[in-house]
């Protein structure tokens, strides 16, 4: 077990580099929210209360919380659709309030739940909107539109000249994403962008978007009320509570294993441990020899998450499942080993709860066993 831990630790450190070298490869810029508050006149409580958020470039930060917690308001202050009552918002070091608001928004990609495609314009014209606003020449815009439609999975030849009402909800939202990416902004704001489509399409869109982000590495602020989506998509998660304050800002693993307070625990809900298993891969468990594999049982690839393994065990009624790598059976995973791993994770979590402060700092503390979590976390993401 310890050997594999050591291996994964090395992997972990190389796979997920520190913030600085990340920035170099990132297509995004850092965002800082410093004491941001929004209070509407005539109301007692703040819509957004003293938010401090350090968003590293190239990260997807999920804003989650119950309705009314201010997550959408917070996001909309970044592109100044709403002006903060106090506090500063810095994009790449510059205070957004010092910039022209209309021009600022042209440098930020904006995707909303209602999609908001212009019904009277073709798909092509929709996607070309921001490049036109910032004055690209026609040729460059045209080729960019074609490129982006391909990137979001829509054949330009077929879709460029159609109108939004001729597309399904999923297709429309793909166009919405393409439109937001058109001028290649370093930051994107996404407000429940996949909420208006059916669950199957939503999963597909999420997976494809994660693929895209792996290449583009933009800084993304993503609002959702769905905690599972937050766990799946986020590099970091900021949980906002009913008082519109940040209850916890940490990686998904950390929130699942050590929720900062009762609110976060309640918000995460039951099944936190099961959710945690989605972030772990089989390569974090020592496998029993292949010979002990029960015959006639469907094997699983070693890239599978522990969640998939447990699911298969329950479905097949087996307590042992053969594991393959590159098509060949290399070992067996047993239920007992899986449960042992869970125990290990809990022990690590408890240990961390003793050493880290309640308001978690962004990023892991290097050198601790948290690296293992990180490696597994990266693995789970890369699996898609």
């Amino acid at each position, binding site marked *: 077990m310890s050997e594999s831990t050591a291996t994964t630790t090395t992997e972990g450190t190389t796979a997920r580099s520190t913030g600085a070298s990340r920035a170099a490869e990132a297509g995004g810029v850092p965002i800082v929210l410093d004491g941001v508050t929004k209070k509407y006149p005539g109301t007692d409580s703040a819509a957004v209360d003293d938010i401090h958020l350090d968003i590293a470039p190239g990260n997807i930060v999920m804003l989650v919380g119950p309705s009314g917690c201010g997550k959408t308001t917070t996001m909309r202050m970044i*592109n100044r*659709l709403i002006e903060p009552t106090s506090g500063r918002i810095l994009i790449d070091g510059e205070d957004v309030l010092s910039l022209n608001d*209309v*021009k*600022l*928004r*042209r*440098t*930020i990609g*904006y995707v*909303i*739940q*209602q*999609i*908001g*495609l*212009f*019904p*009277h*314009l*073709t798909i092509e014209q929709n996607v070309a*909107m*921001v490049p036109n*606003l910032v004055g690209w020449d026609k040729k460059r815009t045209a080729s960019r539109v074609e490129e982006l439609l391909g990137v979001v999975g829509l054949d330009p030849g077929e879709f460029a000249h159609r*109108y*939004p*009402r001729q597309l399904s909800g999923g297709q429309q939202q793909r166009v*919405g994403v393409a*439109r*937001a990416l058109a001028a290649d902004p370093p930051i994107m*704001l996404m407000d429940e962008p996949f909420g208006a489509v059916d669950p199957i399409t939503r999963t597909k869109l999420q997976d494809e978007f994660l693929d895209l982000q792996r290449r583009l590495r933009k800084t993304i602020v993503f609002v959702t009320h769905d905690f599972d989506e937050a766990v799946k998509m986020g590099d970091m998660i900021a949980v906002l509570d009913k008082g519109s304050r940040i209850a916890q800002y940490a990686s998904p693993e950390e929130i699942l294993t050590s929720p900062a307070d009762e609110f976060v625990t309640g918000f995460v809900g039951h099944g936190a441990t099961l959710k945690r298993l989605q972030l772990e891969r089989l390569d974090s468990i020592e496998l029993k020899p292949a010979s002990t594999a029960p015959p006639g049982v469907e094997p699983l690839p070693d890239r599978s998450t522990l969640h998939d393994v447990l699911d298969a065990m329950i479905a097949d009624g087996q307590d042992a499942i053969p594991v393959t790598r590159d098509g060949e059976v290399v070992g067996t995973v047993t239920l007992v080993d899986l449960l042992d791993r869970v125990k290990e994770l809990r022990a690590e979590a408890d240990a961390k709860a003793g050493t880290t402060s309640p308001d978690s700092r962004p990023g892991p503390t290097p050198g601790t066993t948290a690296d293992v979590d990180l490696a597994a976390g990266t693995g789970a993401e890369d699996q898609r």
Partner: protein
Amino acid sequence: MSSVAEQIVTPRERVFVWRDLAIPLLCLVVVTAELYYLSQAPLDAIERDLVTNARIWEYTQEHIVITAVIVVLVLAVAVPLGVLITRRRTAWIAPFVLAFGNVGQAAPIVGLIAIVGIVVGVGFWPVVLIVAAFSMLPVLRNTIVGIQQVDAGVIDAARGMGMSPRGILFGVELPLAVPIIAAGARTSLVLAVAVVPLGTDLDAGGLGRIVFPAIKLDRIEALVAGGLMIAVLALLIDWLGGLAQRALTPRGIR
């Protein structure tokens, strides 16, 4: 009048369909029949003079011109006013403008024309101005409703991506409001056609010049002829308005 939503033509891809010719054909038949009847009917000298083809044609042209001027005026004033009412900073004018419009509807147009005729004088412009004022409300109301019904998500996306307020007005709100504004303009058009004859005594011109003398001189044939011509004119102008409404609707939402 009709509620805004009911005025929208049914969505259709193509602007012109063969079925559309029904109304113009009907009008053509009616006019031909009437003109033929008039040429055959036993009319006395006065009546015959009242309904010569030349007169009918001349008065029809006058009528069209007056109507056109009125509608252009209405659009030029009511649309910008409607837009201003939907902008937060100038929305305070709403009660004044709408009150003016609503009073215009409650007061009888005949009375308004008479008052204008007495106070201002007779002629082309007094009639045009008062009828224009009277016909503002449909276009004003439809402009407001048309802009307000633009999907909030589309507006938010437009703002969020960095379109300037003016860009949003002219690039998103107005294009999407055109069908509804056009419906209002169509109502105003028909209203103008109907009301212009009432201004006959103010010497503005139009087919009223057949109808009112006919009443005063008790020449029923001429009265009916004049009435039919006005009816046909109204139907044709409404038909053209419908075509224009459909043609002006952006393809994406037709």
